[in-house]
């Protein structure tokens, strides 16, 4: 297998984008990535588009074909990838394998979602459609509801407290406030959401024990990458990023059927595979983007990947070990919690953020100093399909 490089990265700001169609967002992010790659008018061999809701929300299918046409990339191969909230990382995986195999030399990978097409009840229902049709969905469970079931188990087993969850919220919103692409650009303080007189009003329980600010928002947005062979990357004359490791694993569809749902087996397994491929260990990682759709997940994933021992992830956040400048900065972008979670875009956006970190392009208040190795976790369903990538900076 050949090494695969990332030579272009682009994004558009996440949030409510009523003025844009899904195709507008995908096209804009794609052009940003193609321009960043310096490909000019050149074509790519393949286009992989991550999207979940096109058919349900926009009544539009075969989105990749449409995008290849809109960007005048014909006759490039094109596929739409749907893998729930892990669609973005799955699309990157498809690009990785296609180039690593030697079949293609270049690929555009783009993920996008327009979730504000419908009201919040319909958006909640759309997201819930990934749960088991008979054993979960019929009962009215939502993804935050599964998060609540998981949070209670994890908090009881490991002593994670509300203060720990709160520390994740504050950290990620503080970083989102510095990120021009973030859905939430407003820092929060204790009095807003935790111990002030208006805390219960501003931050009500939505999926007990999780509160409003424990959950990621419903967002519109898109992000894109250009993948290529290392030979092409070298021609750019600037530092580039290679995919050093990749892993993917699945788990039972329903949360209830797992022997111990707190284990997050698919997270552990996908990370273990990625570390083995990269010949690296958790302490080698300089910066990570984890799938914090709910605050409890950032804590749990940080333990399952091996950044911290079991039961120590909560204290790690509270003591600043996961902040910018800490032992292992996590979700410097603001994460899903503040940057937002347009489902198909998320896995691609996480890698875009890590590419920017490894190319040392971010302003000082967001840049992890001398970052050379980064990791992402993109989490599908409720941890039933997880992808981990490890990226490494290469000097020109």
């Amino acid at each position, binding site marked *: 297998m050949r090494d695969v490089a990332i030579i272009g990265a682009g994004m558009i700001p996440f949030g409510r984008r009523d003025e844009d169609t899904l195709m507008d967002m995908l096209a804009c992010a794609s052009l940003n990535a193609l321009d960043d790659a310096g490909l000019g008018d050149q074509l790519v061999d393949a286009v992989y588009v991550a999207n979940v809701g096109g058919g349900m929300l926009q009544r539009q299918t075969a989105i990749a074909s449409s995008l290849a046409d809109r960007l005048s990339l014909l006759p490039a191969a094109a596929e739409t990838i749907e893998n729930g909230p892990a669609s973005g990382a799955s699309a990157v995986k498809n690009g990785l394998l296609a180039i690593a195999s030697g079949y293609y030399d270049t690929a555009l990978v783009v993920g996008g979602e327009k979730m504000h097409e419908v009201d919040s009840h319909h958006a909640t229902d759309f997201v819930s459609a990934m749960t088991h049709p008979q054993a979960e969905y019929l009962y*009215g469970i*939502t993804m935050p*509801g599964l998060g*609540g*079931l998981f949070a209670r188990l994890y908090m009881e087993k490991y002593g994670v407290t509300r203060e720990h969850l709160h520390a994740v919220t504050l950290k990620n919103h503080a970083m989102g406030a510095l990120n021009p692409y973030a859905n939430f650009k407003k820092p929060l303080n204790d009095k807003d959401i935790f111990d002030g007189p208006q805390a219960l009003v501003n931050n009500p329980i939505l999926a007990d024990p999780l509160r409003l600010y424990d959950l990621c928002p419903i967002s519109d947005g898109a992000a894109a990458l250009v993948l290529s062979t290392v030979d092409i990357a070298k021609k750019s004359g600037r530092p580039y990023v290679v995919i050093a490791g990749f892993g993917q694993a699945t788990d039972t569809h329903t949360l209830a059927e797992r022997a111990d*749902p707190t284990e997050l087996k698919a997270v552990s397994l996908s990370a273990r595979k990625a570390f083995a491929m990269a010949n690296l260990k958790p302490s080698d990682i300089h910066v990570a983007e984890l799938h914090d759709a709910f605050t409890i997940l950032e804590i749990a994933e940080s333990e399952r990947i091996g950044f911290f021992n079991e039961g120590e992830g909560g204290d790690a956040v509270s003591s600043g070990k996961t902040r910018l400048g800490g032992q292992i900065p996590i979700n410097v972008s603001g994460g899903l919690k503040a940057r937002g979670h347009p489902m198909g875009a998320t896995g691609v956006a996480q890698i875009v953020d890590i590419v920017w970190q490894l190319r040392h392009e971010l302003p000082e208040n967001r840049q992890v100093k001398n970052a050379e190795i980064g990791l992402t976790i993109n989490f599908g369903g409720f941890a039933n399909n997880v992808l981990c990538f490890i990226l490494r900076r290469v000097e020109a």
Partner: protein
Amino acid sequence: MKTVSAFIAYQCKRCGRMHYPFHDRCMDCKGREFEEVKPQGNAKLLTYTAIFSLPCGFDQRFLILGVAEFEGNVKALGQVKADSVDQLKVGMIVKSSWEPIRFQSGEDVYGLKFEPLE
């Protein structure tokens, strides 16, 4: 929609492992033949939540849901009959029943409900 008249779990005829929901192959031995069993009666509440942002099809302010474990290591999600999560605790015994859980396409859809016994 096909009406299901009871909560049914599936026991692998080759190795005895219980499954819920249905799988076409046993998760342990990959056997393909299962016997239907009907877990009934009491179960242990393993975790629970109350959700206040409900999907389409639920016309109520909140919904309490929990995962309970029946005898034989069968675990399932169900709706919990309680006014508040303050009445619940992990590990408590709940009585299970098969009752309407939502109204869909003009008819009741049945599923598991759990009622705290303590």
